[in-house]
């Protein structure tokens, strides 16, 4: 009797043990995401969260990442720092995720940088600010192109157009301020004088006053740096106040909705952007063409909504992570992190990623094209 009990207990333990071992071998990949799905940054966070959910569903339908199921936990931070901190801790300590995708905004990303570093969790930020990966933190990566690349692209285009005296307006968000700082820093290098530099509130809806102020400085061009509706109000206000100089915007303008909202006033706006928006206009042999058209088609069919570069950031983050997991052959955080750092020539929506221990963004200036608006559509500048 007693012998049988011992045998039974032993048998059960053995079964459980092997089941556990088997489970560990093909354990699901747990990915957390902290995104501003609602709130003031929702126009960034919502496409990110939709894209991520879409990609995870796709992956699970086709056998997961390297044979592992993917479990995705999306937390809506509403763009506020304290929620991002709370959710990140929850994801790391409670849900024990392998990596955090996001946050959406620079401010939130900076709040998490120290925490994920200390807790050795991978974070792939979808925010643009340079400070996220400069100085480089071991566990922190980011996918959007650098602000400085965008500023350089704008300035070299201006040089070609013979523009040397400009006005700068930027929103008071992290994105606007990051861009403004780069514009101010790089101006001397390109021989450009910033005659007037203004910051406006993200929710502002009339800019005729500030445009009057900048116009009074006799500038040859205006640069606006924001991700807010201001991007389509400013061009209207410029036309209405007879401020007839070229308008340059940041890569935040990469959303056809802003062109629609600005209507005719959007014609001729020049801005640097990833190639997602002009996927159909790329030559057939362009390395990014297949990825871009694939994502664009799937997203637009699924959500009946135009694709935006922000959703593309989540696409890239997931792509980088799943590529690294496949190459690492495990979901041990250190191994996956090392694999991300070794990523070479990975074609994403923002560009072609080449990470290294000193470069946690992995993109070059080549990731940008200068675009313009022609007949209500995005078009490659000068083509």
């Amino acid at each position, binding site marked *: 009797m007693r012998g049988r009990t011992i045998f039974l207990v032993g048998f059960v333990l053995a079964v459980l043990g092997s089941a556990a071992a088997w489970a560990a071998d093909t354990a699901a990949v747990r990915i957390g995401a902290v995104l501003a*799905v*609602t709130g003031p940054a929702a126009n960034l966070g919502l496409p990110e969260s939709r894209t991520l959910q879409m990609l995870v569903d796709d992956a699970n339908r086709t056998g997961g990442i390297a044979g592992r199921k993917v479990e995705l936990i999306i*937390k*809506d931070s*509403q*763009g*506020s*720092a*304290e*929620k991002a*901190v*709370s*959710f990140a*801790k*929850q994801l790391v*300590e*409670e849900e024990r995720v392998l990596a955090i995708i996001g946050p959406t*905004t*620079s*401010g*939130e990303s*900076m*709040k998490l*940088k*120290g*925490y994920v570093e*200390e*807790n050795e969790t991978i974070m792939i930020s979808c925010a643009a*600010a340079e400070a996220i990966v400069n100085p480089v933190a071991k566990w922190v990566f980011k996918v959007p192109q650098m602000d400085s690349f965008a500023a350089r692209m704008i300035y070299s285009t201006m040089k070609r157009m013979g523009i040397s005296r400009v006005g700068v307006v930027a*929103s*008071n*968000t*992290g994105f*606007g*301020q990051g861009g403004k700082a780069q514009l101010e820093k790089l101006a001397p290098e390109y021989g450009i004088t910033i005659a007037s530099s203004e*910051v406006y*509130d*993200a929710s502002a809806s009339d800019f005729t006053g500030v445009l009057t102020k900048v116009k009074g400085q006799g500038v040859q061009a205006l640069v606006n740096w924001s991700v807010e509706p201001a991007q389509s109000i400013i061009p209207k206000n410029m036309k209405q106040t007879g401020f007839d100089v070229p308008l340059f915007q940041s890569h935040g303008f990469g959303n056809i909705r802003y062109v629609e909202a600005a209507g005719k006033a959007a014609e001729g706006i020049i801005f640097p952007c990833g190639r997602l928006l002009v996927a159909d206009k790329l030559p057939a042999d362009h390395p990014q063409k297949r990825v871009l058209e694939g994502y664009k088609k799937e997203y637009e069919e699924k959500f009946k909504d135009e694709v935006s570069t922000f959703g593309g950031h989540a696409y890239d983050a997931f792509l980088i992570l799943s590529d690294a997991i496949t190459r690492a052959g495990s979901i041990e955080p250190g191994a996956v992190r090392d694999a991300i750092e070794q990523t070479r020539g990975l074609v994403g929506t923002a560009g072609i990623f080449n990470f290294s221990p000193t470069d946690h963004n992995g993109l070059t200036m080549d990731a940008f094209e200068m675009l313009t608006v022609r007949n209500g559509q995005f078009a490659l500048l000068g083509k």
Partner: protein
Amino acid sequence: MSRSAARNIPLLAFAALGACVPVALSALKADFYLTQLTMSAWYTMVALGLCLLMGYAGQVSMGHAGFFSIGGYTAAVIATAGMPSWLSVPAGVAAAALIAFLVGIPVLRLKGHYLAMATLAFGFIVSRIILGTPLLGQADGISDIPAYHLVAGLAISGRRALRVQNFYLAWAVVFVGLVAAMNLVRSRSGRALRAIRGDEDAAAASGIDVARHKLAVFVLSAVYAGLAGACIAHFNGGIGPGEAGIMKSVRYVALVAAGGMANLWGTLGVSAVLTFLSLRGAFGLYDDAVFGALLVGIMLFAPSGVFTLIRKRVLGR
């Protein structure tokens, strides 16, 4: 049993409950809950202060997130600018108190809609100044705020190793805040405040210095908020402009209203639970909607708070 002993029973129970929580959670291997429990303690401090002001003195403040962020941002600037590190929290509290004093003198002369509007405008101004000032990090806020070292290894910090002591620390502060508030409410001044809430002219006629009492409780509630802001800035290692938003001020009002206005225990309970759930993302995409619905629902059906409603409907008392 004497009355004072009877009064102390809930406090003792509260303290015992607080002491047991980390032990129970660690036995259940769920000590990750401590992070959000600690955060909700700090936000509950704001609600307690506002409860004194709104519930007992009858003065509405739609701008308490302003005082919270004045405390938080002051502490954050001092802690990250290389000034003596012990200064950050006291300076945060002092700044909130000072500004409450300066703003309170003129603003508290107003009543009703005008007071609501003036405090709302105050909160709006604070939020706009934060968003417009590079020193305060504008929309990015301030990051990399170091731990705040108290005595002997005790520190306000979000580090995983310090989770348990931070839980005790935060709830101990709430406990002290609660006891202080209860004593105030029971004191002569507390009776004066209730008289002011009932009818200011009558209170003044019976010899109460209305302006001084209102100002004092306004400053006290700002101290609660400023302390909470300063401590949570250290606990989170950062602070963002979202803390100063109008929605945050509205939330504090919602917590006090749901708690039953002049009900410190109610405010404490509602705030601890709802803030905890919100910080865990329990309401998903409907976080703001939940608080909106709460405000409307409570004010329509249970203006004296959820607990009174439960007592009346369920217990029939």
